[in-house]
């Protein structure tokens, strides 16, 4: 059964359409990540589910109940904000206990203590319970913020870029921890991010959003390997997929193909003469474990990865070979290798 479902939801702020015609359902125990750039409508989607915004059209359904007209407190969801999530005038313990002390819930203090203890151990912050919320490091603060959502057992957790204000190391650490907790507790999470690594590593399914609409929804593999458009293809993978006009590459391509999408694994570079198009090495970035190679193919630039042991340097002439690249038509929709449009 779907834990949360959005049915053709739309929301505008004045002339700006923040979310349009959005339908999405999240199953029980599922981890769904909404991925997209700033202004794609991800946060608005979460706020609509939480009840912090009223949709102009459509319905929000939580556990089979239409909650579109309900206030946030009645909806039984938990929200983790990007920042400002802890109350500075309360201790860590009181912050964690805050949702349980809501007049709508009436949990006795003994249960609260047990629950807070449990969650603080899960998040490794039990030694900080007496601290003021402002006397924590960034990582600890975000742990407490997540903990404040976890003390309750809501039908769904809504997380709005909870890790984005942390440094890279902490982010990686908490990413793993969050996924572990989600597996252990079997919770349903709808998670918003613009970080593709978070999306790829944590999600059961990823929804890619752009300008208020859901462009594609699928497992991380599906989204990565079979994007339905050049836009989706560009959201995942580092370095970013290279979009090259088909005519530059020559060779056989399905009909109506306008653009060819080349990820680094689709490109093979050889210094020997090959049948493929020839390109010039523009420069090489050494990252230690790998090299980013910038190539000039006629007037177009390409970026790909190369083995550090491969002796490439600026000015070298190389020949390129392509292996099952992605094809896109004029409108940016993907055409599968057998020429069928929209076959994802």
């Amino acid at each position, binding site marked *: 059964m779907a834990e949360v479902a959005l049915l053709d939801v739309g929301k505008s702020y004045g002339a700006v359409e923040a979310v349009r015609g959005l339908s999405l359902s999240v199953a029980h125990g599922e981890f769904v990540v909404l991925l997209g750039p700033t202004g794609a409508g991800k946060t608005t989607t979460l706020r609509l589910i*939480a009840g912090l915004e009223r949709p102009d059209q459509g319905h929000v359904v939580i556990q089979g109940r239409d909650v579109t007209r309900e*206030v946030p407190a009645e909806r039984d969801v938990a929200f983790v904000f990007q920042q*400002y999530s802890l*109350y500075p005038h309360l201790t860590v313990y009181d912050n964690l206990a*805050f949702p349980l002390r809501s*007049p*709508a819930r009436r949990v006795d203090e003994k249960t609260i203590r047990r629950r807070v203890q449990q969650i603080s151990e899960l998040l490794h912050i039990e030694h900080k319970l007496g601290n003021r919320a402002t006397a924590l490091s960034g990582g600890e603060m975000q742990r407490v913020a997540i903990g404040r959502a976890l003390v*309750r057992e809501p039908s769904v957790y809504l997380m709005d870029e909870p890790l984005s204000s942390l440094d890279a190391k902490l982010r990686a650490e908490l990413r793993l921890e969050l996924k572990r907790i989600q597996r252990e507790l079997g919770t349903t999470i709808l998670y918003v991010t613009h970080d593709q690594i978070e999306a790829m590593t944590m999600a059961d399914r990823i929804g890619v959003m752009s300008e208020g609409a859901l462009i594609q929804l699928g497992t991380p593999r599906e989204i990565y390997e079979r994007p339905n458009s050049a836009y989706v293809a560009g959201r995942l993978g580092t370095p970013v997929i290279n979009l090259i006009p088909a005519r530059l590459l020559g060779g056989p391509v399905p009909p109506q193909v306008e653009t060819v999408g080349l990820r680094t694994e689709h490109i093979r570079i050889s210094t020997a003469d090959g049948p493929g198009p020839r390109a010039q090495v523009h420069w090489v970035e050494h990252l230690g474990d790998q090299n980013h190679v910038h190539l000039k193919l006629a007037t177009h630039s390409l970026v790909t990865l190369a083995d550090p042991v491969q002796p490439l340097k600026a000015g070298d002439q190389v020949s390129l070979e392509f292996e099952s690249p992605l094809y896109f038509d004029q409108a940016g929709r993907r055409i599968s290798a057998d020429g069928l449009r929209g076959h994802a």
Partner: protein
Amino acid sequence: MSTPITAHSVAEPSSRSKLIASFLVVTYAVITILPLLWIFLTGFKTPPDSIAYPPKVLFEPSVEGYVNLFTTRSRQTPEFLATLPPPQTWYERLVRSRNMVIGGPSKVVPRFVNSMVIGFGSTFLAVCFGTIAAYAFSRFRVPLADDLLFFILSTRMMPPIAVAIPIYLMFRHLGLTDTKLGMILLYTAVNVSLAVWLLKGFMDEIPREYEEAAMVDGYTRLQAFFKVVLPQATTGIAATAIFCLIFAWNEYAFAVLLTSGDAQTMPPFIPFIIGEGGQDWPAVAAATTIFFIPILCFTILLRRHLLRGITFGAVRK
């Protein structure tokens, strides 16, 4: 000869500029405190000492000013005084030595109570209304919000006394002249605009996420306001309360115009003291000293908040 190399932070002022700064602060403090100190000392002088020229810095302290402040007296002939039974208390003796007898307590206590009731009452109301209005302006899409805010501010664009006549007529019509309620309403009305503007700035500084988190966690907006917004607005509320109280406490013009008896506050009352039996400056000084105490206490109580609040939220927590 080598110059010693010292680690010198750019942000840290040098000891010389610190010295200059402390000198300026001390000078300013002395200049502002001196008149207050003079008033305080005058309260303990005898009437002749208080008007002595050159002014007396050293004098024999006396509580005559305070006795005169709290009593009404009448001058009597020595013959009449001789017929009276001997004075029972120290202050009766003091008054008798000036050839006077105590008629009864003066009006200073009820006037002081009036000041307290009207000052704190109007401050409380202005801060309450101001907080609620500022929250609304800060959080909700109020129609014509900018115009309304301008309109609210426009009530401060002239001296309040400029509208004295219409207010006097209104008060007379409504039967509010010389009532505490009338004065509380008037001072609240004047202070609300200040409170709304000051507090809106503080409310804007409190991220909405706090209330939103509380609302998702099962609180209503009102509960979230009390549990989450108010505790974080204490700085602003304290600063606003002090400004409001200072205005209401010191207001003179309306108090003279609209009160004469039951609701009279200290500012119009203090000048009356001079009229009773010559130029009784020690009694005036005593009244001023007592008048000063509540504001001093209130400010000291809220000082911790005020010091942060006076920067108008410029410093992020």
